[in-house]
């Protein structure tokens, strides 16, 4: 609020871009070119074949890594919530890995699974899966006990209990985990590819910084940021819809 008027959120971005432009125009540092030239560079690199090849391979690694972490993370989280002993044994490890610097493991991964797309996929997986496990577990654990009792009293089989009550009941937490996981996943792609350095967006980053193409470099940074933001916002939108249904919890 300023002078009684509501200011749109993007206004703060606009101010930052103006500051950036001024610093760039002043030529204080070769690392920071003017924002307008970064945008121009972005417009020129996006249609190139090199960019679309890098983008598609990065997207593929991201998608496969995320799919894997969902396919493994959700069942694990559910199991850990339902089987007390399993939750206790694995809970500690999940908590360690969720806060561990996974990037440090990437060089080891390269040695194990080779230098290539697989390493990047595994990196995305490791970045995303633990927070998904953690949140799913919390969601299922917090599932309304009386809903479980209700389903049982109406003769729910074990599989129905999971598909018709527990998973749906935990959906808000699962989606929150997915959103955090996806944000980490984007980091995973970039870090994985940077360390592997011969594929995807990471290769481009490597290339631009080697030849000191700062305009292109910053343009790519902004594109990656925008992608991460778009993914997170899309999931947040889903979350809001689910919250609406689950608001009575």
């Amino acid at each position, binding site marked *: 609020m300023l002078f009684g008027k509501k200011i749109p959120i993007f206004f703060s971005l606009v101010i930052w871009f103006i500051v950036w432009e001024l610093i760039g125009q002043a030529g204080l540092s070769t690392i920071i070119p003017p924002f307008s030239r970064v945008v121009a560079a972005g417009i020129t690199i996006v249609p190139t074949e090199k960019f679309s090849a890098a983008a598609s391979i990065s997207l593929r690694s991201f998608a496969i890594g995320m799919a894997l972490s969902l396919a493994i993370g959700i069942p694990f989280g559910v199991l850990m919530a339902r089987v007390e002993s399993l939750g206790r044994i694995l809970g500690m490890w999940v908590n360690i890995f969720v806060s561990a610097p996974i990037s440090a493991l990437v060089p080891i991964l390269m040695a194990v699974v080779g230098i290539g797309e697989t390493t990047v996929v595994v990196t995305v997986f490791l970045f995303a899966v633990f927070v998904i496990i953690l949140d799913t577990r919390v969601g299922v654990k917090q599932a*309304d006990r*009386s*809903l479980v*009792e*209700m*389903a*049982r*009293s*109406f*003769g*729910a*089989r074990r599989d*129905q209990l999971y598909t*018709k*009550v527990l998973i*749906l009941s935990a*959906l808000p937490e699962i989606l929150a985990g997915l959103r955090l996981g996806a944000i980490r996943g984007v980091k995973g792609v970039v870090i994985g590819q940077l360390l592997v350095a011969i594929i995807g967006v990471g290769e481009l980053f490597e290339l631009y910084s080697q030849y000191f193409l700062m305009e292109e470099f910053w343009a790519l940074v902004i594109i990656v940021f925008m992608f991460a933001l778009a993914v997170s916002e899309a999931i947040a939108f889903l979350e809001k819809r*689910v919250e609406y*249904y*689950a*608001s*009575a*919890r």
Partner: protein
Amino acid sequence: MPAETIVEARGVGKSYDGAVEALKDVNLMLPHGRLSTLLGPSGCGKTTLLKIIAGLIPPSSGEVWVKGKKVEGPGPERAFVFQDFALLPWANVLRNVAFGLELRGIPKEQRSEIARRQIAEAGLSDFESSYPHQLSGGMKQRVGLARALAVDADIILMDEPFSSVDEQTRRKFQEELLDLLRHKQKTVIFVTHSIEEAAYLSDQIVLLSPRPGTVSKIIQPNIERAGRNPDEIRRDKNYLDVVEEIWQILKHYVV
């Protein structure tokens, strides 16, 4: 005329972790087609006993027989109405009412039809596509009751069903429940801590003593209800005597 027994508890006991004894040696015969109340102070294990009858909790000792069969778990002849309604927050009224049928694998069209009929009887036709959080407490419990009726169980187990609704709604519910019993051959087992509610509704009141819960007395109110309005019943001498009798016993349990 003595009705035949539909639910029987034989020496039912329940202890948690082998230490806390919630129920001890409960022996009960509940008549078919009648409303029986389990009444007692909080902590007397009345809800535990109801859940054991429902097959939701296994007893530590003794056994429960329903319609000549030993209870090993929940069964289609029993339906439960929950104190906190236990409605699926992500499902609308129609799906909530049909949920018991959905679990039994009844085709969607058929179960929707049955559910719609129950919703109409509960007076909620305009709210078929509403979600639980859009309903008042009273409406939620109507949905809970409609869900129990939709599966057409013989025995309806109600765990303090009217305790989370306001007094007016509560009285209206009581009327409707009595009305329902007059028209349908249902056996109702009703848990409450309200003496008036128990005396007003019940054909048989099972008084439980606290810690460990055990049957302290069984009372058959014998109140003439046919053709009388609620206020007349509440002034009935039998009704007042029963309330007094229960109070004389219960007040010893109040610390």
